């Protein structure tokens, strides 16, 4: 077997050195009743070529050749081939967590750069070395706010990603953290009247997403003011990280929980992605996840190490800030490389392209008489429209034309029965936007 570097004679030599007559002897500690007598019923073994064929056949059963108008927390963006050329280097791909700093300086310096980029993007003072994804980052941010304030209730905007809210609910139940949802207003932003009414001395944090799941930006500075007036923290979640190229960063937030998938990570049917928590320096000891710090060696040379490890489970055990151990390091490296390639101008240009394409798409769709935009607040690259009939049926018709239609908002918001969340990024050619609008017009003109 090509992954096993021993010849039969080497195995014999090694057994002889151990003093065992057969490999079975080495398993004597497993009670005989539990030792398998038959090989496992597994498919294979396959050669390399057969493995590739297998997955190519699976790929052919997916959505090759379709154009997509889906965002809803996962975004199609251009990736440079340079990213894979670098992260596929064995020294990055096959290296371990950098606990032994002297032989992991490559990983550690890259993480330090990642932490810096995240601070620059979010306007926060410190950022960690990654969480699993945006949903668990947001959840951990809420738990962090509970620790910092000593209060046990969070107010979460309904316009936060529905799956993120579900994850929070799963964790909060066992943390004794109360969660109350705050509705959105006609503008699509969080209802500030309802929020003010709910904010009190028990509130650990207010949690919003910006741009939110309905596509609109939230007034972060005002929300921070409202929260701080009650000594509650403001947690801002970001699902479409490219928005930070054009939208004012949530610097007034106390904790930012971001999904970094938009920075060079393929959609990959849901993962792996990369979550980040960024916050103020004074909360750093309550932050979960790894942190890389700059230091010097005995000769005064600059180097980097994992630091403040006493927050983590391998030291604090049952008193740790989180149980996270393995994180999303290689994804964070990919995001770092991607951001360095884009750079200051490139990120801005990318954000402008997204903004422009989405606005163009909206204007094309609004030319269809029965289609109108829902919500009025500014949006980035996603917006909601109201259709005259079921979005599910419309999408089924679009699918026949090789168009994967917008997200059906009704599945997550039952009150938004005929609403669709349209996402357009720099990857959608103008011709496809126009084709989508034309198809939609035609479908809506057909009798029901």
């Amino acid at each position, binding site marked *: 077997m090509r992954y096993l570097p021993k010849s039969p004679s080497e195995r014999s030599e090694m057994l002889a050195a151990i003093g065992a007559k057969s490999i079975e002897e080495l398993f004597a500690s497993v009670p005989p009743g539990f030792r398998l007598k038959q090989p496992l019923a597994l498919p294979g073994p396959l050669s390399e070529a057969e493995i590739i064929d297998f997955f190519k056949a699976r790929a052919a059963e997916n959505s090759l050749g379709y154009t997509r108008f889906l965002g809803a927390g996962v975004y199609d963006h251009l990736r440079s081939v340079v990213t894979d050329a670098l992260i596929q280097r064995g020294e990055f791909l096959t290296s371990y967590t950098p606990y032994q700093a002297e032989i992991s300086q490559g990983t550690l310096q890259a993480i330090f750069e990642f932490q810096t980029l995240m601070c620059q993007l979010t306007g926060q003072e410190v950022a960690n070395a990654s969480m699993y994804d945006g949903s668990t980052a947001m959840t951990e941010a809420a738990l962090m706010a509970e620790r910092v304030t000593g209060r046990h209730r969070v107010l979460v905007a309904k316009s936060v990603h529905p799956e993120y809210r579900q994850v929070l609910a799963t964790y909060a139940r066992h943390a004794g953290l109360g969660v109350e949802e705050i509705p959105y207003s006609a503008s699509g932003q969080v209802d500030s009247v309802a929020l003010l009414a709910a904010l009190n001395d028990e509130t650990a944090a207010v949690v919003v997403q910006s741009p939110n799941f309905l596509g609109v930006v939230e007034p972060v500075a005002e929300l921070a003011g409202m929260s701080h007036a009650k000594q509650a923290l403001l947690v801002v979640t970001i699902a479409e990280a490219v928005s930070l190229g054009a939208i004012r960063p949530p610097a007034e937030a106390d904790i930012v929980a971001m999904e970094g998938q938009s920075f060079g990570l393929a959609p990959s049917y849901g993962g792996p992605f990369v979550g980040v928590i960024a916050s103020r320096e004074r909360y750093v*000891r309550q932050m979960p996840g790894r942190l890389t710090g700059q230091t010097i060696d005995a000769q005064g040379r600059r180097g980097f190490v994992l630091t403040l*490890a*006493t927050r983590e489970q391998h*030291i*604090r055990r049952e*008193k740790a800030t989180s149980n996270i151990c393995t994180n999303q390091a290689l994804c964070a490296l990919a995001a770092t490389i991607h951001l360095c390639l884009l750079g200051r101008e490139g990120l801005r240009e990318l954000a402008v392209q997204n903004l422009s394409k989405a606005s163009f798409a909206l204007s094309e769709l609004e030319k269809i008489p029965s289609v109108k935009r829902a919500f009025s607040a500014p949006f980035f690259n996603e917006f909601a429209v109201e259709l005259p009939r079921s979005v599910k049926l419309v999408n089924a018709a679009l699918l026949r034309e090789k168009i994967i239609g917008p997200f059906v908002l009704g599945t997550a918001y039952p009150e938004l029965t005929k609403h669709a969340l349209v996402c357009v990024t720099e990857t959608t050619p103008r011709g496809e936007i126009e084709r989508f609008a034309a198809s939609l017009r035609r479908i809506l003109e057909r009798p029901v």
Partner: protein
Amino acid sequence: MPYPTDRRYTKDHEWVRVSGDAATFGITDYAQHELGDVVFVDLPVSGTKVAAGQTFGTVESVKAVSEIYAPASGEVIEINSSLSDAPEKINQDPHGAAWLVKVRLADPAEIDSLMDAATYEAYIAENSREASA
């Protein structure tokens, strides 16, 4: 180093020095040695009530965290704020400049059951012997 005789000691390696109805708490030289280089100290705010034998803070080194247990009950009246900028004082002068908190004692009699310097020295000698056995 010989342990100062002006104070009492606990099994968890804290010391307490009384003056009037107030007392000063700290951790011993043995404790700081076991911990290694101290990087952070977490202390309660003034006004916090502490109870004998209960934790009232933590001391961290790079690789370990240690709870600190109150030698006696009372109310915190002052904390040593110099330790936040210079936690290394705990390694340098655990019995002097690196005192942790001053407490108004609820029941000064609690101190009587604690070890004196000689008893504590014997206790840690016993501990060390067991550790290397």
